[in-house]
C-alpha cells in the first residue's frame, strides 16, 4: 500500500491556487488530482503518475493499460510502466498527447506540460545513464 496523507481540501482551500504536496507542487489548474497521495520518500513525478496514470497503468486487477502492455510484451518488458527502464521521455509525451490504441488524447487542461514533464522524469528515473 502506498502511504497516504490526508489533506483537507475544502472548496475554500482549493480557491487559493496551487497547493504543495511534500515539496512537489500539484498544479491547481490541472484537475483530476488526488491530493491525498504523498510524495514523501518518493521520486520526483511519482505523485503526478499516481494522479493521472495509475488508474489505468497501476498494479492490481482491472488496469487496462497494464493488461495491454502485458499482452504486448508477454513479460519481455514489465507490464507496469513504473517498473520500466527503457522508456524515452519524448515518446511518453507523444503517447499522452496523441493517444495510442484505446488510450485517448490528454489535453493540457487535464495534464499540463509541467506535470507531463514530471511524469516523463519519473518513468525514466531508472534508465541506465
Amino acid at each position, binding site marked *: 500500500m502506498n502511504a497516504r496523507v*490526508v489533506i483537507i481540501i475544502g472548496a475554500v482551500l482549493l480557491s487559493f491556487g496551487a497547493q504543495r504536496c511534500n515539496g512537489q507542487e500539484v498544479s491547481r*489548474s490541472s484537475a483530476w488530482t488526488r491530493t491525498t497521495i504523498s510524495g514523501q520518500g518518493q521520486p520526483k513525478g511519482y505523485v503526478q503518475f499516481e494522479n493521472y496514470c495509475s488508474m489505468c497503468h497501476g498494479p492490481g486487477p*482491472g488496469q*487496462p493499460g497494464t493488461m495491454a502492455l502485458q499482452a504486448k510484451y508477454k513479460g519481455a518488458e514489465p507490464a507496469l510502466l513504473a517498473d520500466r527502464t527503457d522508456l524515452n521521455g519524448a515518446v511518453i509525451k507523444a503517447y499522452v498527447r496523441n493517444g495510442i490504441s*484505446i488510450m485517448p*488524447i490528454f489535453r493540457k*487542461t487535464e495534464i499540463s506540460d509541467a506535470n507531463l514533464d514530471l511524469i516523463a522524469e519519473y518513468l525514466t528515473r531508472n534508465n541506465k545513464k
Partner: protein
Amino acid sequence: MKLPPGVSASDFAAALEKFAAVVGKEWVFSSQDDVDLYRDSYSPLWHEEDERVPSAAVAPDGVEQIQAIVKIANTYKIPLWTISTGKNLAYGGSSPALSGSVILDLKRMNRILEVNDKNHYALVEPGVSYFDLYHYIQDHKLNVWIDPPDPGWGSPMGNSLERGGGRTPMRDHFASVCGMEIVLANGEVIRTGMGALPESKTWQQYKYGFGPYVDGMFSQSNFGIVTKIGIWLMPSPEAYRDGVVSVPKHDDLIPFVDTLSFLIDSSVVRGTMLLDSPLLSYRASQGGSVLDMPGGPTVAETEKLGQEKGLPYWSMELHFWGPPNVIDAQWEYAKEKFSAIPGATFKDGRYYHFPMEVKDTDAVPWVALGIPSLSVFGLIAGGNGHMDFSPIIPMQAEAVFEVLSAFGKAYADLGIEPKNQFFSLPWCFFPHSFVLLFGFPIAHDVEKNRESRRAFQRLVEVAAEHGWGEYRTHVAFMDAVSNVYSFNNHALRRLHERVKDAIDPNGILSPGKSGIWPKRLRQQRA
C-alpha cells in the same frame, strides 16, 4: 484550421485576443498542436474531411469568466462547444458537432463545493471527475457512495447532463440531479429549483422549487452552460451480494422479464442488470451469432443445443445493496418469484460486508460498489476505440425477441458480420425500460469507419421503424437520431429550436447539439 462558419479571420483573431484578456493567454489554445488535443480519439470520421474539429479552445476558471466569454462570443458570433471533463468517449469525446466551434473547456473548474452525508448529496463544478469525488469522500471518511458510470474519468456533471447510467441503485444519473447553476447565452446566471430562493437552505434537497421545472431543458441541450450541479448520493450500505437466476427455454423469457419488471418496480431488485444468454453466447462462440440471422438455427434447434451443452437460454445476475438481513430477504423473495418458472435455477454469488477486503485475484464488480474504475476498457481490446449505438426498447420479452430478429436481418441486409461488433442483450440502466448497447469498433482507418457509419445509420432507421429510439448518441449522428424523433412533423424539435432562437438569438451555444440548430446555422443540419 477550420474557422467557425461565417466568421472572418480578423474577427476570429480579435475574439481570441479578448478571450485571452479574460482567462489569461495560457488558457486560450489556438496552435494546431494544442487544438488537435480536442480531437475525438474515437472519431468515426478520423482523417476525413467531415471530422468534427474545433478552431480553438478557451478554458475559464469561474462563472464570471464564462459570462465574459459569452459576451465576446455574442459580439463575434463565435460558436462555443462546452465540455466538462471531455471524456464523453464513444459519443464524441471533447469534439464539437459543428467544426470550427471554439471548445469551452471547463476542466479547470474542479471544485467539490459540498458533500453532505446526512442528507446524501454533493454539489460540484464541471471539471470534477468521479475519481475526484470518490477520493474526496474517502479522504473525509464520509458515509456516502457515488454511482460512477463504467469509465470513471468523466464528470458527475457531464454524465448526468448526458443522462448516462451507472450500476448502483442511483444508476439513472439525471434522475439524481438536484439543482443547477447555469450561465445563459446572454451572460445571465440562473439557479434552478430551490436555488432560485436567494437564501435557500434546500437547493440540493428538493428538486422542483416553485413553478415550471426547467432542469430537463439543460440536459443533452445547448440552452445554457451548467456551472454547478447537485447530485444525490446513496448512504454507504452495510453489505452487497449478488446471485444469478437462469431459465432453460426461449419462451421462459416472457415470465422472466415480467417477474424482473415487477421486482424492479417494487424496489426489491435495484441497480443495473444485464440480461445474459449463456446459450446464445455459446452459439456465437461457435461461429454463429447472438442475433437471429436469417437462415440461422431455429429456436427449437438452439434449445436442443442448450440441452446438449447444459446451458440455460437466459440468465441474469441480480445485485443487492443494504443491511445483510434486508438483502438476504430480497434475494430470497426474488428466488421465490422466479421459482414460478419451471426449471429456474439459482446460484449465490459474491457477498461483501463493508469495509471489504479484496484480494488481487477477486473479480470485484468495482463500479457496482461505487468505486470508479477504467477496467471496462480492458474489455475493448484492439482498434482505436468504439462508438455506441444505444436504443431504448420496452422491458418485455417480446421486444427482446423482436430485437434479435430485426437487427439480425439488418446486419444480413448490410452484409456485415455481426460477430465483429460488440453487442449486448438488454441492460436496465433506467427504470421501466431496457437499453441495448452496440459497440461499433473505431479504427484510424477510413474504409472501416465508413462501414461502421453505414451500419450505424441503418440501425438507427431500423430501430425507429420498430418504435425504438436512442437515448444518447455520438456528435456525428445527432442529426440522424434527431431526424427519427419526428412525431407530428418534428413538433418537438421545432419547439426546441423556437426556445433556442429565443434564448440564444446569436446561436453561440453548442450549435448542433442533439440536432438542435440555431436559426443562423440551421442549414448545417444533415
